[in-house]
Each structure stands twice: as structure tokens, then as C-alpha cells.
């Protein structure tokens, strides 16, 4: 390529420097700054907030939706969305709980088969992954908008949950230790759900930033046709992220039933909103191609910290809905403003 050196040097364009670059970075760390500010302000107002046990508390609350949120991050980066995760949490929770020795239900349909805990968990995770796989296949084969397709599976899976449980809760008498460990146990003083969450964040971060499949995920969301014409397997990658999210939603369902020591038809309801809020607050753009797993980690913690603070200050739990919604609206508004600035 030595002879290209004689080519005219480009002088026509003088792209934005300095400030423009700074903007991008500001965008990426904005959620982190918000979280730090929140912690500082809340810590100043209420010393109880800064205690280690309170942090663990927040982490425990955040972990379950957080596991879903990091999976959702990858789906949203591909330009998709999955509204069915809440139903998946419920179904997987019920299926796993019913397979564990010691679970009881008034419904005849619920499995009489009892499995060892690890096997039951595997079955549950497989069910979650299967739902995700179906989502991915519907979206890639029929080209239905992901939001409509997963709205359909959301209803469908909820229906399966009703069918399976007959509307009766599944309880434990007693819960095996192995199962209790998943939601209620601790490893080296850290609650098990938090450990699961940390592992999920680490794995998905590595996958998205350090592996070629992650690069493909970003490329597909940024420009699906360019990705395809670069030889990337667009459909296969999409199916993979939905399946992964289904699996993670299943994991969240298992942890949740263990923590609550019961499974019923309402658990998981609305989780898709909390997860999506966390992802968007974390700076992942709903238009695809931009975002990060770490951002979503921060995003779900922002939601968690706000909820925790509201609790500490004795605010009614109801106001948390309003706050979550407002934070989501604020986050997507900031994303919109950032996109606007990029365009000009």
C-alpha cells in the first residue's frame, strides 16, 4: 500500500474534536455519576444508608431483576426487546419448585416427579432457555417486531403457568437445603443471589466486550444489513441472545421461588419493566447498537438505591412505582437528547 501515500490528504472535513469526544464519554459515564451522587447525597442525609448491611440489602433486592437486566442488555443492543421475561420467571419458578422434593400444591397437574435439586434446577433453566429460543425463532423467522412477538409469548407463557399450577401456589414442606441455598444462602457472607448476579455480570461483560460474538451483537444492533454483509450470522446471534436471556430469566425465577419459599401465578409480573428500566437508565439505547452490561449493572443499582432510600425515609412503597417510571422517562429522555446531539 506504499503508493497510496501519495494520495491527497483530506482537508475538506474537519470533524468535531475535543468536546465531541468528551460528550461520548460523558454519555457513557453519566449513569455512574448519577449513582455516585445518589450515594453521596443519601449517605449525607441518612448515615444508616451507608452501612455495609444496607448495601448488601440493596444488592440482594437488585440481584434478581439485575440478572434479567444484564441478559436484556444484550437483547436491546441487538435492537430487540423481550417483554416475556416476567412470565418466564413465573413459569420456571413454578416448574423448578414443583420438581424439588418437599414441594406441595393442591393442583393435580403439578409434577408428581421429584428430582434432586441440581437436576430440577437444570430442568428449570432448560425451560427458560427454551422459551427464549422460541422467542428468538419467532422473531428471526417471521420478522414480527420483537416487542409484539414477545408480548405474544408473554401471554402464552403466563397461560402455561396457569395451566401448570392450576392457579394454586406451590409451597414447600420443608424446602430442601440445597434449594434454600439458592435464594436464602450466602457464600463467604455474600448472599447467594448476589453471587449469581456478580457471575452473570462478569460473564456477560466478557462475552459482550471481549468475544467476537459480543462484537457481532453490537454490529447487528448498529446496522443489521452491514453486519450481514460482513458475513456475521445475524439470525443465529439474535436467537442466541434471546435464549441466553430466557435462561437468565429462568435463573431469576429459581432464585426468587427459593427466596420466597413459594411459587405462584403472580411472581415475576412486571419484572420486564424493572429490567428494561435498569438497562435504559444504564445508558443502553433502545434503538440498538449502543450500551453496556456494566451500564445496566449501574442502572439497576440506581433503581435499587432509590427504592431503598424511599424505604429508609419511610416513603410508602406505592410512591416507588412513580419514581421508577419517572427515572425511566428521565433516562430515555437523556438518551434521546444524546442521540439528537449525535445527529447534528
Amino acid at each position, binding site marked *: 500500500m506504499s503508493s*497510496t501515500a501519495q494520495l491527497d490528504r483530506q482537508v475538506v472535513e474537519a*470533524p468535531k*474534536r475535543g468536546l465531541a469526544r468528551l460528550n461520548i464519554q460523558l454519555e457513557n459515564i453519566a449513569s455512574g455519576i448519577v449513582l455516585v451522587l445518589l450515594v453521596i447525597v443519601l449517605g449525607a442525609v441518612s448515615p444508616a444508608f451507608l452501612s455495609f448491611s444496607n448495601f448488601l440489602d440493596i444488592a440482594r433486592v437488585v440481584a434478581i431483576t439485575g440478572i434479567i437486566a444484564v441478559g436484556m442488555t444484550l437483547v436491546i443492543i441487538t435492537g430487540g426487546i423481550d417483554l416475556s421475561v416476567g412470565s418466564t420467571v413465573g413459569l420456571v419458578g413454578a416448574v423448578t419448585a414443583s420438581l424439588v422434593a418437599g414441594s406441595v400444591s393442591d393442583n393435580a397437574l403439578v409434577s408428581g416427579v421429584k428430582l434432586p435439586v441440581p437436576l430440577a434446577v437444570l430442568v428449570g433453566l432448560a425451560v427458560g432457555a427454551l422459551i427464549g429460543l422460541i422467542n428468538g425463532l419467532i422473531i428471526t423467522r417471521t420478522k414480527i417486531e420483537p416487542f409484539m412477538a414477545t408480548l405474544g409469548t408473554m401471554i402464552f407463557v403466563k397461560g402455561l403457568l396457569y395451566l401448570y399450577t392450576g392457579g394454586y401456589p406451590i409451597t414447600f414442606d420443608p424446602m430442601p437445603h440445597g434449594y434454600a441455598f439458592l435464594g436464602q444462602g450466602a457464600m463467604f457472607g455474600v448472599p447467594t443471589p448476589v453471587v449469581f448476579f456478580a457471575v452473570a455480570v462478569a460473564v456477560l461483560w466478557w462475552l459482550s466486550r471481549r468475544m467476537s460474538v459480543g*462484537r457481532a451483537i453490537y454490529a447487528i444492533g*448498529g446496522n443489521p444489513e*452491514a453486519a450481514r454483509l460482513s458475513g*456475521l450470522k445475524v439470525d443465529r446471534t439474535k436467537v442466541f441472545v434471546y435464549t441466553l436471556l430466557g435462561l437468565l430469566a429462568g435463573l431469576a425465577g429459581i432464585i426468587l421461588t427459593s427466596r420466597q419459599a413459594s411459587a405462584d401465578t403472580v411472581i415475576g409480573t412486571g419484572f420486564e419493566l424493572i429490567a428494561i428500566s435498569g438497562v435504559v437508565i444504564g445508558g443502553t439505547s433502545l434503538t440498538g447498537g*449502543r450500551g453496556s452490561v456494566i451500564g445496566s449493572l449501574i442502572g439497576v443499582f440506581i433503581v435499587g438505591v432509590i427504592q431503598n432510600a424511599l424505604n429508609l425515609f419511610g416513603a410508602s412503597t406505592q410512591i416507588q412505582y412513580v419514581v421508577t417510571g419517572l427515572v425511566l422517562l428521565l433516562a430515555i429522555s437523556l438518551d434521546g437528547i444524546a442521540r439528537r446531539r449525535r445527529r447534528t
Partner: protein
Amino acid sequence: MVASSTPQPLLRMEGITKSYGNVQVLHGVDLEVGRGEVLGLLGENGAGKSTLLNVLNGVIGREGGSVLIDGQPVEFAGPKQAQEAGLAFIHQELSVLPYLSVAENIFIGRLPRRKGMPWLVDWASCYRRAGEILERLGVRIDPRTMVGRLGTAEQELVEIAKALSMNARIITMDEPTASLTEAEIERLFTLMRQLKADGVSVLYVSHRLDEVGEICDRATILRDGKIVTTVDAKTTGSHALATMMVGRELSELFPKTEHERGPETLRVSDLSTPKLKNVSLTAHRGEILGLAGLVGSGRTELARAIFGADPITSGEIFVEGEKVTIDSPGAAIRHGIGLVPEDRKHQGAVLSMSNAQNISLACMSKVSRLGQLNRGAERQEARRLIQDLQVYPPRAEQETGRLSGGNQQKVVLAKWLFAGSKILIVDEPTRGVDVGARAAIHGLINDLAGQGATIIMISSDLPEVMGMSDRILVMHEGRVAGELARKDFSEEAIVMYASGLEPTTSGPEPAVAGLEPTREGSNA
């Protein structure tokens, strides 16, 4: 300069300036259109035509200069105000709404209202008036028909009817003949002459220079955002117009480097898809094979079929003598084929990713092991290519979306260099690219061929395809209509083949740069 046909021109634009960001697109443009005049506006891609038309029609604002209609200065806050002042804009991309009726499309935003109840639509009057206008145009379309059921030519007539319904005095037509057949073009010209007779002025943009001579009174030539000159369209030949547009003698533009033509690298035999009929071709090491033809003649479809982007119904592809099965872009890449698509923004680069990430995209396996990316090696390779290709600014971590069009195109080319493509298909590589980058890209393509790559270059820009290629295949209606060796290159021969005719020695004035670069039906 030729004086305007009337003492007081209907439209006068003076000293129009406009820039996007730091790039000045219009540098004080002056333009006059007389009453009942058809003025051709000519210029290469990127000369500033679209910007000028958008300024005139109130789509975008201008920075300096004035627009006068009947000698009165006018200011448009938006397209609506421009319409009210008697301007109509028929876009290259038709903007009809398929689910609405013909009548409603004609009166979009200005539906007739009931007397006394101005919030109600007067449908009877709407259909009647639409019928009258269509009648005046000699068009037999029921105004109640849904526009989606009409053909493209009919949809274009609906646009013209819309302009007339607004009592437009100045109609801007941006490449109206791009997707029309000969008979339809003739019909359009008859219509334009009728408009002229009614005192309506037309600002006519086309790349078909023969058409300009046929329908326009005068032609104004725009180059690099400045007016070059205004000439009498009837007496100025196509070749002269083309030279004025380009600003240099064509032969000077493309210093052709001769390469040794090596052994055959690609052979396509009897390739068919819904858009292609038994296409066969061969290409060689070190050769630049040009693909010319009209819009929709199947050039882009051929490129996409060879690359595995669209399914083929029959035919065989051989790479370096071996029969290969290419059913996906991935398979094509494994066989050393690369494609620089025509629509850079939507198909070429992932604008939200960095240059390094775009460059490694088609061959991540080169810098990864077991799926793990080695980002250091990736950046290093990318930096080397960025330097070689003189991408500006020369940063691997720069987001590609923030580069200029020409530099984005270089990044896409770098992607295929990184992937080690031996057969590179480039589809309109310099469309929408500024002059400097254009020369750089041409140089790069020449270099690649010199290093032994096989290049297949699709271009609607005749001087470009003739200047660059060693051999040209001309396509017509999904077939290869003719093949020209470099010594036989002539604009006339290409145009004849492209129109489905055999070249003759004495023909009409050749249309230089006449294969207009418009949408190519690439999404088919």
C-alpha cells in the same frame, strides 16, 4: 452566459450560501428561471444540487443570499410557505402515501373544505377537482383509486398533478425520469411542454444529458457548490455539458495504471435470480472489471448474488477454477470475496462502532482465538490500515459515524483489506464522496489491482467506469448485453448496450455521465 428569456425572471436566487457543519456546500449560488422556461440544473453528485433545491423549496434554511419571485424577495419558514408562494417540489423518491386515494394524495395537507364548516373535508369537490387536474394532464386514473395500486410512472403523475393543484408556477423535478420507460418519458416531456405553454416554469434536474438538450431551454451547471456557467441547452452538446460539469477533460481525470492481467480468478456461469437471467462472466487477477448499465439493470443484484447476499435460483460460481457454493456472505468471505455496497450508511459500515471494530468485522477470526478477541492486535492492524488508506482523522478508536462520507468509505475498504479479499466487488464506490476522497479511492482501487486483486466495479458514472476499468460489461434487464475491451470503450457503445441496442457507428448524441446514479432497487 446566456441572458434569461424574459426581462424580469420569475425566479431569481442570489448569492445563496449554505454549509453543513464545517463543510460549505453552496458558495454564493446565483440562478434565474424565466417564465415558462425549463431550466436544466446539472452537476455531478455532491455538486450541491440537492442542497440548492432544498433551500429553494424551503426544506432547509440558507445562511446567506436571497430568493426573489417576480422581483419580490421571499422568505420561507418551511416547505408549506414555499408551496404557498407557488413552488412545487417533485422528489426523486416519490413521496406518495400508498394507503390513501389518488385525490387525497394530490390534495395532501390542503384538502378542499366545506363552505361554512372549514374543519370538514369536501370529498365531492376533492374528487371532482382531482379528476379535472388528471384530465388536464390527459391521465385516465380514477381519483378514488388507492395510490399503492398504481405503477411508479402513474405515481409520478400523481405528484405532478399535486404540483398543478397547488397552482405551482415553479416546479422542481429531481430526476423525474429515473425509473420511467422511454414511452413514459416521452409522455412526461409532452406534459412539460404543455406546462411551459401555460407559463409554468420547471427546474429540471437530470443526469441524462440527452434529455436536457431535448426538453430544457437553458442549462445551469453547478460544480463544487458554485455556478460554473449557464448555457443554451439546445445548442450545447452533451459532451460539452459533461466537460463543464466535471471541470476537466475526462481523459485527465482517471490516470489509468496498466496492470498485468493474470489468470482467471472468478467465473460465473449462467447465474439466475428473479432479477438476473443467465449471467456469465469471468474476471482475472489484477483486472478491474467495470459493470455499467441503467438503474435496475441488475448490476447491484449481480454483485449481491455473487456475494451470497441474495439467493440464486441457478448457476455456478468458480473461484480460482474451483466450483464453490456461496449461500451466504460468510461463505463468500471465506472464498476471498468482498463487497463494498452502494448504500454505505445502511449496508457498509456500522456507524455506531469504532473504526477498528468496523475494520475487523468481516474477519474477526483473524484477531481472535476460541472466540476471544485480541484487541491489541486488532487495534494494531486497524492502525496500519488507517495509515495506509489515509483515513482522517487517523484514529482506530474514532466512531466511524463521525467521519466524512469519503473516510467512511475508506474504512469499509479497509475492512476488506483486513479480511484479505482477493476478489473485491465495489458498488458505486464514490457516490456521495467528496472530490479529494474520490481520487484517493480510485488510487486505492488501482493499487489493489496492481497488487493482484480482482476488482469488479459497478458505477453509474460513465467517466469513472471508463477511466478505471480494463474491461466493461454492460447490463440490460438482468442480462449481460455487451462486453467492451478497453480499446473499444466509448460512451456511445455503453449507452447503446445499456438501452438494449447494438452499438452503431452513427447514432444520436451520446449521453455522457448518462447512466444516472439513483436508487438501484438494491433491497429487492
